């Protein structure tokens, strides 16, 4: 099985590398978005898939870092080398504040994070003298540091691909570490972990802040791709879609959220080309996922593999 996985990964990586030559700018744009929103979905899944917390405020970190970068670069002419880390930092600081919500569990956590996320949307929407209101901040340049500057969408695609690949590797190390194991222990039974002497609150808080940092990272990548940012990026649908992506792809895996992101974004592009009611279709996808595919693509793949394995070993 290890070899099969290595082959699949190698093929996927090769396909990602040749994509700009093999396909047109439309597919490259879609792939860039898929990577960026997949990273956002991955960040929510650190909480959902490993710690068992269902957050509905990740668009906040995404948007705050995007706005920070946009405002610093466009209005104050701050170079990328400072603006991008500032965006990452501010998003993470917000996560450190919103991380208070790990004092609640279950339904309360869901409702509190939803309401917190709404506060950020409200600020982006209403504080128009600073955030630009509904028009947002436009004309964000491509990122560049001294002589190293991105000048085309193809270059930016490769940059995003490299960064996302590094993030995926780092994420894999993180969830396989004792810390990741502790989170899954808390997900399975918090009271048991606590009686074993783990400070579960501190672990969940750390997971929340890390997850927020990853979402902020996605926000930085997003604003340089999109070249503008408006309150939509902070809105509730972005948060809940990120969770849906993680679940459709397969919660608790590294690849799953990216698969889910590809499916949702692909569906959006395809459906909205011939049908007006895209939001209704998305709503039906939500319902169908819950009813028929709660374990997502990776879950279905796992079941198929288990079934194939059984039939293969049965005659022997």
């Amino acid at each position, binding site marked *: 099985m290890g070899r099969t996985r290595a082959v699949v990964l190698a093929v996927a990586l090769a396909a990602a590398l040749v994509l700009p030559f093999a396909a047109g700018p439309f597919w490259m744009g879609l792939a860039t978005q898929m990577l960026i929103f997949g990273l956002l979905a991955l960040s929510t899944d650190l909480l959902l898939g490993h710690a068992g917390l269902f957050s509905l405020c990740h668009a906040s970190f995404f948007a705050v870092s995007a706005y920070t970068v946009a405002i610093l670069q466009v209005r104050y002419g701050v170079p990328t080398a400072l603006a991008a880390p500032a965006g990452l930092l501010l998003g993470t600081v917000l996560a450190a504040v919103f991380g208070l919500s790990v004092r609640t569990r279950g339904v309360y956590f869901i409702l509190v994070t*939803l309401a917190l996320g709404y506060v950020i949307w409200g600020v982006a929407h209403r504080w128009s003298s600073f955030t630009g209101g509904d028009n947002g901040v436009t004309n964000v340049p491509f990122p560049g540091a001294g002589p190293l500057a991105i000048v085309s969408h193809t270059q930016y695609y490769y940059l995003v691909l490299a960064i996302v690949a590094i993030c995926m590797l780092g994420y894999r190390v993180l969830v396989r570490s004792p810390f990741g194991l502790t989170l899954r222990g808390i997900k399975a039974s918090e009271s048991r972990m606590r009686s074993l002497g783990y400070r579960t609150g501190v672990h969940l808080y750390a997971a929340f802040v890390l997850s927020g940092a990853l979402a902020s990272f996605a926000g930085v990548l997003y604003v340089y791709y999109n070249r503008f940012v408006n309150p939509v990026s902070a809105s509730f649908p972005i948060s809940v879609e990120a969770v849906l992506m993680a679940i459709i792809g397969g919660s608790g895996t590294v690849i799953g959220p990216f698969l889910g992101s590809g499916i949702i974004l692909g569906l959006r592009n395809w459906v909205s080309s011939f049908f007006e009611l895209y939001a209704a279709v998305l*709503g039906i996808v939500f319902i169908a996922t819950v009813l028929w595919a709660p374990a997502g693509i990776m879950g279905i793949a796992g079941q198929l593999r288990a079934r194939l394995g059984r039939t293969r070993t049965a005659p022997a």
Partner: protein
Amino acid sequence: MTSTILQAINGVSLAALLFLLASGFTLSFGLMRVVNMAHGAYYLLGGYIGLSVARATGSFALALVAGGLAVVVLGYLVDRFLLRRTGENHLAQVLLTVGVAFVIGDVALRIWGGDYLKVPVPVALRGATELPGGLVYPTYRLVLIALGAAVGVLLWILYRKTQIGAVVRAGVDDREQVAATGINVDRLFVMVSALASFLAGMAGVAGGAFLTLYPGAEWEILVYALVVVIVGGLGSLGGAMIGALIVGLLDAYGRWLLPEFSYFVLFAPMAVLLLVRPRGIAGKEA
């Protein structure tokens, strides 16, 4: 001084509306352990249907009832065919009802369009009323406060003083035990759920007459109702009442004093609560 008092009445009238929505949400969670994120969409749909009925018949009372009843039917179908299949999995419930809300919102957008629409109010409620002390205040909002108070009192009597209420309270505390005594819990659920839907639909008509109806209103009002429920404590009717007053008043003064940060004002009660009392003022085990 005068504006301080006027803002207080503004806050209380918003509180009355939020109470209509939050009481249904909190009761259905308390009894059925169901988190229904489509509550905001129920509000919006009830409001739109009430708007069409009011335009066709000219009767505001009929609009209130029609908006409420239409949502009762829809809510029953969602409960019966979708929510029942999620068991007590809150994650599944949230995703499912968010999906339902997206569908309702999008369909409503195609039917009623994207403009800000206002449910017409009967002539008798259109003007302003002079309050003792020389204050002049829109009549409609005063009536809304009365409506909220009346619903609050009725719910309280139903919940505390009748046999049905006693069974519901028992169900909130221990559902299996109630079922074991031979009470038809399923029928109870249908009744409470219908009541919650009716209140949401009616709130849509009542709210649509002064907050207007537009795409996206479903999420805005839902978040306000959720903050009410978070502050008050899930499953508590009294908590919903206190929460509604806190949120209504904070919002009114926030809009008046800090217009650019009016949403931010909502953050304050939640932050205090998270630090001091994560279960809300009157909350039970979640």
